[in-house]
């Protein structure tokens, strides 16, 4: 049970998005509720990132509506997002986190302590004083997670957060995501990586060409997909 003012569930009702006459999402109806991570899979251009941006309230639908906990608007205070290539602010690792805490409205006095806690959680405490832009790709992704957690999010949207990482860094990021999800944060993640979807997903949403082709619990999706597109995607066929 969520407190009043909760962002969940995030409901998409007949949502379509068009940009320059190109339809990116078509008549999507979907509910993102509290619980296990929801993983969005699908080929490039299927609308995964657009769906995440809608969930974050960063994009308005061309048709249909999105609601957060029954409300038509969100102030986004408890929504956070990490993109595939997060931009590091031109500051130290530590200052990147304190900045995010400040943006989230955290009191000035406690920011240092909280920032150190978040950096420890991301395994970056020893890198506190380094320029964030000089961190490796995996470290930057973990720092982006720490910044996102500074918002004390109820919903964390991840847009292919390990797409450019090696297996060791992918594992490090996945461990943090698993811990975050276990703490009650709703994780919504887009990925191309079926192995990652198997490891992390509680439910899977398959998007193809801007349409939701299938939505089912992860165990069912991987063992007994309901649609031919899902079956083809799992076989590794080219789904366009």
């Amino acid at each position, binding site marked *: 049970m969520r407190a009043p003012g909760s962002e969940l569930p995030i409901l998409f009702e007949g949502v379509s998005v068009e940009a320059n006459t190109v339809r990116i999402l078509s008549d999507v109806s979907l509910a993102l509720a509290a619980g296990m991570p929801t993983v969005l899979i699908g080929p490039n251009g299927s609308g995964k990132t657009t769906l995440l941006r809608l969930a974050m309230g960063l994009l308005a639908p061309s048709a249909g509506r999105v609601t957060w906990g029954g409300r038509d608007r969100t102030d986004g205070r408890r929504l956070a*997002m990490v*993109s595939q290539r997060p*931009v590091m*602010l*031109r500051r130290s690792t530590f200052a990147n986190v304190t900045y995010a805490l400040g943006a989230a409205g955290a009191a000035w006095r406690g920011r240092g302590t909280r920032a150190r806690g978040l950096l420890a959680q991301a395994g970056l405490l020893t890198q506190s004083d380094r*320029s964030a832009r000089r961190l490796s790709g995996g470290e930057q992704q973990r720092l982006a997670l720490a*910044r996102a957690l500074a918002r004390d999010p109820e919903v964390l949207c991840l847009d292919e957060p390990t797409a450019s990482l090696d297996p060791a860094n992918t594992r490090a990021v996945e461990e943090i995501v698993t811990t975050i999800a276990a703490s009650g944060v709703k994780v919504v993640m887009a990925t191309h990586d079926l192995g990652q979807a198997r490891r992390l997903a509680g439910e899977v949403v398959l998007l193809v060409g801007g349409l939701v082709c299938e939505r089912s619990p992860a165990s069912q999706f991987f063992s007994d997909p309901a649609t031919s597109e899902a079956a083809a995607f799992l076989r590794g066929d080219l789904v366009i």
Partner: protein
Amino acid sequence: MVEETSALGLVLGGDPALYEIVRLSLAVSLSATALAALVALPLGAYLALVDFPGRPFVIVVLNAFMGLPPVVVGLAAFLLLSRSGPLGFLGILFTPRAMVFAQALLVIPIIAALTRQTIEDLWTEYRDELTAMRVAPMPRVATLIWDARFSLVTVLLAGFGRAAAEVGTVMIVGGNIDGFTRTMTTAIALETSKGDLALAMGLGIVLITLIVLVNAAAWSIRRIGEIHAG
């Protein structure tokens, strides 16, 4: 050869007249750059971040004004500050204050245009992150200015370089009065016309040295910034 030796003698010997000119030149140009920065940094940031009707036109005009002829700026400043002009009540014509005012007019477009470009480039880079973090407009501007600070120092030094090197503007509104409004550039022009090449060359040496030092400082600040802040 004699002239070069005399010029070096004036510089190394700490000639009081020469160093008074250098002091006034630095004071005027630094003050003008600071005054221009107060107007141009917010103006550049505003143009970078706020869309409004006619914005492209304003940007084109601002960029064009980077190449304003100093004598034209000097003339405009003279008309503004002259007794019958709208700012004539200030009574600062033919004083160092008038030179500061005129140089600031000259430098504002340079600082504003380069600031706009710097902030706009950084905003393109930061937009998604700051939007996702829900950073409000004013803190957003502060963030961009702070994170672009090393580039903006270079912008300010470009403005300072322009102010320190110009001659026409300060000649018109300052009058090149000995011991009062004479700067390095106006003194070089005057001494050359009088045939006192030693003093002109001495001032030239100091001016070039200052410009090299300013550029070295800009490079160092930027390099240190890249190492520590990325």
